[in-house]
């Protein structure tokens, strides 16, 4: 709360959902805090209030333990009712890792997650090719740019039916794909078996974005890179643009 109250009216206001098993909520909060033009506050999962927010982050973690299927219970939480309404009104929603899984379970994005092909948790830096650099989440990157962002998940093996995939392709909804360092989308560069090397997708309207990699983890060179900053810069910039 304090971060918001101390900032000016023009600040881009992020809300970070906290499920009891979220564990990247603080990392997202800290990442937002590195941008002078942004402020953040936490949103408790039992609440439904999103007043004055420009963007909602569904952070990584294990929402309600995820012993069943990642995100399967979170979709029924009170906050997700509010997030659904917020997204319907055109608000920006970004789901990172577990947040992406929840967006799929909630039907805010198409498709589903299988367990990783190797059946193991995978935590490492991956290369991503930016497939669509005109979304509110990626406009600070260049089309085709290769960025290095870490993944850390057990269920990131994205799947959608053939028709669904064609739909995603046709409307530029595949935002980032796993690739090799030169930008080639290869099987070897796919860390989890996801269909078409999909790492992140957006909805048709472009205001809801889910991705398995963690941009909030690479917002400071001291901890391994700053390629994730572009995601937050893009959001801040697109909201500032919309206000003009």
């Amino acid at each position, binding site marked *: 709360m304090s971060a918001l109250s101390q900032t000016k009216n023009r600040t881009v206001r992020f809300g970070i959902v906290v499920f009891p098993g979220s*564990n990247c909520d603080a990392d997202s909060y800290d990442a937002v805090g590195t941008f002078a033009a942004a402020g953040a506050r936490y949103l408790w999962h039992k609440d439904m209030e999103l007043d004055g927010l420009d963007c909602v982050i569904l952070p990584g973690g294990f929402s309600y*333990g*995820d012993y069943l299927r990642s995100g399967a219970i979170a979709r029924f939480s009170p906050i997700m009712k509010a997030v659904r309404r917020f997204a319907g009104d055109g608000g920006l929603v970004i789901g990172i890792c577990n947040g992406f899984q929840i967006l799929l379970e909630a039907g805010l994005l198409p498709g589903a997650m299988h367990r990783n092909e190797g059946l*193991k948790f*995978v*935590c*490492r830096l991956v290369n991503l090719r930016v497939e669509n650099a005109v979304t509110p989440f990626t406009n600070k990157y260049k089309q085709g740019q290769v960025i290095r962002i870490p993944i850390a998940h057990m269920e990131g093996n994205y799947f959608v039916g053939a028709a669904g995939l064609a739909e995603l392709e046709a409307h530029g909804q595949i935002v980032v794909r796993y690739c090799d360092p030169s930008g080639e989308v290869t099987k070897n560069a796919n860390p989890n078996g996801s269909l078409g090397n999909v790492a992140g997708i957006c909805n048709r309207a472009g205001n809801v974005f889910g991705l398995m990699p963690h941009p909030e*983890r690479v917002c400071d060179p001291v901890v391994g890179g700053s390629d994730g900053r572009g995601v937050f810069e893009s959001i801040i910039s697109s909201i500032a643009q919309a206000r003009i």
Partner: protein
Amino acid sequence: MTNKAGSKPAYELLGLKAREYDDICARLGREPNYVELAIFSLMWSEHCGYKHSRPLLKDLPVGGDCILQGPGENAGVVDIGGGLAIAMKIESHNHPSAIEPFQGAATGIGGIVRDIFAMGARPIACLDPLHFGSLEKARQQFLLEGVVAGVAAYGNCMGIPTIGGEIHFEDSYEDNCLVNVMCAGLVRHGDILKASARGEGNLILLVGSTTGRDGIGGASILASAEFDETAGEKRPTVQVGDPFTEKKLLEACLQMRDEGLLVGLQDLGAGGLSSSASEMASKGGSGIDLDISRVPLREEGMEPFEIMISESQERMLACVIPENEEAVKGICAKWDLDATVVGKVTGSGRLRVFNGAGLIGDMPVAALVDEAPTYLVEPVRPAHETDEPLAEGHYPQPANLNEILLTLLASPNICSRRWVWQQYDHMVQTNNALWPGGEAAVLRLKGRRQGVAFTTDGNGRRCYLDPRRGARAVVAEAARNLSCVGARPLAVTNCLNFGNPEKGGIYYQFKEAVAGMKEACRALETPVTGGNVSFYNESFGKAIYPNPVIGMMGLVEDTGRIQTLAFKEEGDAVLLLGSARPAMDGSEYQLRIYGEVAGRIPDVDLELEKKMQLLVREAILKGLVRSAHDVSDGGLACCLAESAIAGAVGVVIEMEPGRRADILLFGEAPGLIVLTAVPADVERLRGLAAGLPLRKIGQTGGGKLVIKAGGAAVVSVPVAQVEQAWQGSLEAMVSGKK
């Protein structure tokens, strides 16, 4: 007192000896009832009572300027300046993991994490030293996979990065794997909590999970006895982990801390409610009355003694003034956790157990906590130990050293651990200033230039040949690892894994290892803040290698000025710091190539070690070195190979003639560090070294690892080939492809 079947007395079935039973009767002034006996059997187990270790452990150095909390609490606490401190502790979960690797390892993490937040600290890192039998056996692959998956499942869900540890494979651990778990947490000085129950009339609340029949007898039956063919039947003594509940418990407890609601906080671990309540009363100099009829249960028909000794996970005991009861319950309700008043603090000095109105147990706290008998055993030096190192010509000199190098790099004890650490979330909390796979892990402290570094080290094989020298070397290596990233070693937590201490040979090993640890910790000024003793690591009468595992933390002055082991550029000078003479004895080379573990390991020169490490830290801080790597398993050649692989830069080395090249390259001795520096900085580095043994042995560059002896290349392998041997080996072995 006999059991219902009438065969063996009940105390014996619970793991107590006849004279211990008599001792209990004397302290109570009567025979204990079954509830009391069950409680005593846990508190007087080796695991909880430290019966064979207490007299020796008291000699370890525990004090120091930076020590805010030494042994005796849930964790040690080390001052890192600016009002902040690090709480840290290492523990074993060996026997549970040998029986059920996934849950054994998972609940090991759960237990050590609770120890850290019981101190009021937010856990920021886990490190897991693991020891298994040979990976050629399917059972060992199963254990490795299960343990790693268990660590990952619990730690990843909790959002605590697993940033280090180590893995060794030796036949000695085949029936008795070692799963040690370390956790560190960050705490402000004023927030440090103690596990004490004080203030007559204050309430004792049980917070977290319900209580069930899992883990009955974990500390006594499972942890304090050897394994035999009935080991599998002990599976019900292994607990089941629920990291989601623990995550909620963590957040709830830290919120109570922030709101100043707690008089004391204690986790429920080995010995369950019995141990937690009596330890809280002991530390507070008080007594506790518990009413077990109020404990929320997860199954019906539990006996009173089961409720008292259940080791159900994810539970904490909080001491709270009556005025704060509702606030504590409110926080727990927010996190959907149970919080139940199960007792109150008294001035009686006794642990009294009620079932509703009926008193079913009444014992002096001091008898439970402080008066477990201690045993001194006559130490007997094992027959395999010798004072004589092997002669240089003991083994024939191999013709092809390239092959030896590639074999050693692919050894399960040396090859890349990427397969393991990629399964651990090592980045969550975004403090990771170094990637895994280096000398030590470094975490930044948000908002500060400073950082903290952690490492764990153990080497049972060397300790087997000479436990005192081995323990000295392990402490020195841990400190060296920290110094090589630029961190000043501050303090130690230890996990002492040994066989059955009732045997003279094992007791000798323990005594010698503790003596060695004492010498090294004193010399390097790294006091011991606590830890854990794990005895009875034996199966069918055969003990594991004596293995004192050291967890060490250090302080980094500036996270912008740390160093890695990777070669950075072509043309840098390669320097060898130290004068230790590599030996075959106890080396990976001896084991892997000649199939033996024999001889006497070289001793570490602790005074020289201290000076060398200071030099390395200063050189790193001044920016005079571009890489630093400790010469360890696999000797100088493997050390150089690892730096070359990490930096994708080759190296050409010229060894001085005189000794057998294979022993110089692959032999091991504690106290050698490879540094690289820009050629222009070498003289300044020499000046800083002020007479310490530092000599140039080559330079980086080219695409090969080349080592010449007397002008002729004895090793010459492309870095890509070196990397191939090292990189995929573990994965191939686990999947049975190798």
